[in-house]
């Protein structure tokens, strides 16, 4: 539908517009409401202390979650910053630690055991029981096949060199102790962790 505006009403509108803008410029504009600064996004959040999982420095982190832990709520981490009470980092975080939120909420994050069968390129989801059984089976088979009790010179060595234990860098002392005990008890000599990354 076309609206016909006559020359006269066009001029009237123009004059009204000019008058209004002149009034505004001379200071008769309606007072603008002044919104306050951005809403503080940590209000009402739950703060949990944790250790950064990236490297062996083990900086302290504060994880801020929404949700109160009730049965019908799934809590979600929505902000992470440094823990000022942590003796190592005293509140600071490196770029990886500072951006850990996107790591926590990453779509590609591994949340359950997966297996890639030989000669395939697909990762298949398996249960924890299945995964642990499978790992135990592989370890047992390999150890039975390759465990050495004596070396070339006939010295007693009791070693298992064909399998290694790769531990995490941000383990607690207790975890590290148990890892060491299990690996050594099996005769594993190659123990490493990803602290060097």
């Amino acid at each position, binding site marked *: 539908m076309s609206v016909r505006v006559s020359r006269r009403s066009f001029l009237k509108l123009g004059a009204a517009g000019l008058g209004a803008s002149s009034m505004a410029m001379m200071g008769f504009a309606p007072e603008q409401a002044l919104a306050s600064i951005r809403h503080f996004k940590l209000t009402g959040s739950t703060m949990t202390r944790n250790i950064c999982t990236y490297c062996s420095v083990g900086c302290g982190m504060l994880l801020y979650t929404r949700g109160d832990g009730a049965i019908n709520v799934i809590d979600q981490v929505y902000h992470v910053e*440094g823990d000022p009470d942590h003796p190592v980092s005293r509140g600071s975080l490196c770029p990886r630690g500072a951006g850990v939120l996107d790591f926590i909420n990453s779509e590609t994050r591994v949340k359950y055991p997966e297996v890639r069968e030989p000669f395939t390129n697909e990762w298949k989801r398996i249960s924890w029981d299945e995964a642990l059984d499978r790992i135990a089976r592989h370890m047992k088979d390999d150890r039975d096949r390759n465990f050495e009790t004596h070396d070339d010179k006939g010295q007693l060595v009791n070693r298992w060199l064909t399998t290694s234990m790769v531990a995490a860098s941000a383990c607690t002392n207790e975890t590290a102790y148990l890892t060491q005990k299990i690996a050594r008890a099996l005769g594993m000599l190659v123990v490493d962790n990803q602290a060097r990354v």
Partner: protein
Amino acid sequence: MRGDQINLQNIVARSASITPSPQVRQGGVEQVTKLIDVSVCIGCKACQVACMEWNNTRDEVGHCHGVYDNPIDLTAESFEVMRFSEYENEEGDLEWLIRKDNCMHCAEPGCLKACPAPGAIVQYANGIVDFNSEHCIGCGYCRAGCPFDIPRYSERDNKAYKCTLCSDRVYHGLEPACVKTCPTSAIMFGTREDMLDYGAHRVEHLKGRGYENAGIYNPAGVGGTHVVYVLQHADKPEIYSGLAKDPQISPAVEAWKGITKPIMSAVLGASVLAGFFHYVTKGPKEEPEDDPDPENAGRAREIDRHDGEDRP
């Protein structure tokens, strides 16, 4: 006045507004300052990450330009960027100068002066210059007014954005996100007095290490800034990826907002008044019919009379 609060954020100046803000209860507000010590910065960019995390911005993944600067320039979603420059000093040694580039929070902000939208840019009593995006009209004048070329215009919502010095955190007694995360204490935050004291201490230290021209970058041309740098070569700020030696608000902005605007307002007002008095003394102008043919003119008048009824 140590011990006074720094987080009270009453507005002391706002763009395109003549009405002064209430000031009686603003005594005892301490000015804040962020100090960036270029000499201990390792360029890790934790500040950039913490900034994006806090402000919920996630910039587009860019491309490598052959340098460490990433992103290559500030954007509406990257409020700060580390600028890397390789400087060869008089002895022929290479110095890697890494400057965190972000809003300087000038005491006399050019953006605020240039902004035509009432209340879109405000200055708090503690010195922070903040964009109130609700009132932003997206004209981009703030960028023209800024002597440091900081504000960036977003194509997504047609509004300008820049660093807020985490005014939301400061209001709740926290330091800005970049300050908190910095692993080498290259970024510090506190009252203006404390930061200038600390900066002076750092400058002394640098002078003892052989940097004779070390100093604090706190340019007087914009009334001082609430973000100050400690530079090893304060006599040559331009080697730090083009940091302005003597930043000034552009004379065009000064003239437009200083002299031209009131004069033009008066001229506009006078012309409206003249038109009004002309109407009063001479009366309305008698229009000849639009169409010389009386039959057509009559039809046109009929349509004019009904044009309101056409509308829904």
